[in-house]
């Protein structure tokens, strides 16, 4: 059975990841930072009353929020590990 590893919630890491994804979709730096901040606020609110969450659930929340803001970035976020 695969060993489960737990990590601390990394708000900055999420912001950086969303920013990189947004920039790869051609979004300018300032706008990418705003999008990343909005997504981080959403994950903060979602995680507040939870002790433990899975990475998959967190990714779903991020993808859902990105879908509302910019479907292109959401597509890039959801498909990044399905390119090859």
């Amino acid at each position, binding site marked *: 059975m695969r060993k489960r590893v737990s990590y601390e919630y990394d708000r900055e890491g999420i912001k950086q990841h969303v*920013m990189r994804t947004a920039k790869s*979709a*051609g979004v300018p730096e300032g706008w990418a930072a705003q999008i990343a901040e909005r997504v981080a606020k959403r994950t903060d609110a979602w995680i507040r009353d939870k002790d433990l969450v899975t990475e998959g659930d967190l990714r779903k929340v991020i993808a859902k929020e990105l879908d509302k803001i910019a479907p292109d*970035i959401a597509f*890039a976020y959801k*498909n*990044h590990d399905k*390119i*090859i």
Partner: protein
Amino acid sequence: MSDYLNIAIIALVGLVQASLQLNLGGLILLYHASIGKHRRRKTRYLAKSYIWGAMAINFLAVCASCFIIDRIFSGVMDTKWILITIGALLGCGIIMWIFYYKSGSGTQTWLPRSFTRYIRRRARETNDNISAFSLGLLSAFGEMPLSLALYVVAGNAILLTSDKYQVLAAIFYAILTAMPMVVLKLRIKSGSNVVAAQRWRSKNKRFTRVISGFGFMILGWFILTYWVL
């Protein structure tokens, strides 16, 4: 047989190889990772190095194929080996149709997950031109099980052309194999982005699979007609 016909065979082999997806996928991964952390100019240089890497291994592989065929057969392949190669091409065509892409959304290919994970990690960690060049080499090398038969056909066709055109034919072949990557680079330079490219790949993956499969089959039929019958 005329040089034109052999050049046509080399062109067809190059186009079939260009329809394989790993090189293009690797370049999209590199763009994806690099645009997020580097300036546009650096990303352009990395992409250029990646394309040179992929072209270099295709050029070297086809030259190696020429050398091996020349050594083993003292000239060009005999009919028995051409028929075996045709069989391999038909097999590759069927593999393209059935096994090339994994099921589900996205454009994940048949490659083992550990290998694709390694390429993804390398793309993330690529910060200089040498690493980008090596990544291009690696991604072209990863597709070797399918492209091996193509190298053999291209090598034999190059040996059948006149001596003065052989090096040019090998260069022509390497350039053709890089065409999808060059087109992507030009599209991005003209304002498009990698997300649009990946969206196109996802939407048309069935089409590209069918085209590649038919490409292998047509190539097999072509060399059967001109080299065997």
